[in-house]
């Protein structure tokens, strides 16, 4: 799991952030109230009905107020990101940009939304060392062109 999905996502966020590209990382650890006694975590793709706020159709009579709140929050964050390039919105907990130095992500947990340093840092760091053996060793880059610079400016990015 960490090897195949979770550390690679953190790696991509880290590479982008290191190249001054705004990056936001999340961990979806929320399990619908009706499934908590059965699932020790959030399986792959279970975030989808929350992202699109279709949880009422997905969970029906088993839907809980917490499920609804989580779905509404996630939809708002996702839409805000699509509009602005930054998921942070209004009065909701601020979502700091990802940085390898702080390693902060937004954790959608059973306890609510928590912007925190990755709680799995220790184990992901081990995996990162292991998988780095497969990474390309060179990364020639070309300068950011004018159009890309304009786009980044539009999204509020300051290099």
């Amino acid at each position, binding site marked *: *799991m*960490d*090897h*195949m*999905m*979770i550390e690679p*996502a953190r790696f*991509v*966020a880290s590479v*982008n952030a290191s*190249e001054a*590209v*705004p*990056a*936001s*990382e*999340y*961990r*979806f*650890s929320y399990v619908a109230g009706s499934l908590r006694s059965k*699932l*020790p*975590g*959030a*399986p*792959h*793709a*279970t*975030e989808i009905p929350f992202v699109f706020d279709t949880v009422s159709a997905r969970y029906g009579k088993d839907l809980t107020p917490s499920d609804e709140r989580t779905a509404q929050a996630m939809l708002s964050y*996702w839409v805000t*990101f699509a509009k602005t*390039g*930054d*998921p942070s919105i209004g009065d909701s907990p601020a979502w700091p940009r990802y940085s390898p130095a702080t390693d902060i*992500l*937004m954790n959608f947990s059973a306890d609510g939304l928590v912007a925190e340093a990755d709680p799995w840092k*220790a*184990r992901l*760091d*081990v*995996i990162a*060392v*292991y998988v780095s053996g497969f990474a*390309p060793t*060179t*990364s*020639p*880059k*070309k300068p*950011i062109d004018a159009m*890309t610079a304009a*786009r*980044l400016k539009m*999204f509020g*990015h300051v290099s």
Partner: protein
Amino acid sequence: LLADPESFYLSGGGWYVPLFIGTNSLDLGFGFAQSKDALFAPVGTDRSKAVAAYDPPGAGSCAPSSRQSRWTI
């Protein structure tokens, strides 16, 4: 695509756009290890760090979940 993705991105051809990425706490993983030794073997000399992170003393035995027939990290 006009080139294979790896070459394209390595040559700097990717777009610089804000990134939004994440995973789930019980996300996909395919495990084939049938013992702890096999589980931690790939990390080589970092085995002690891996054990400390995944199977710390006193936290109970690292074992496959009921949903998995093989171990994975």
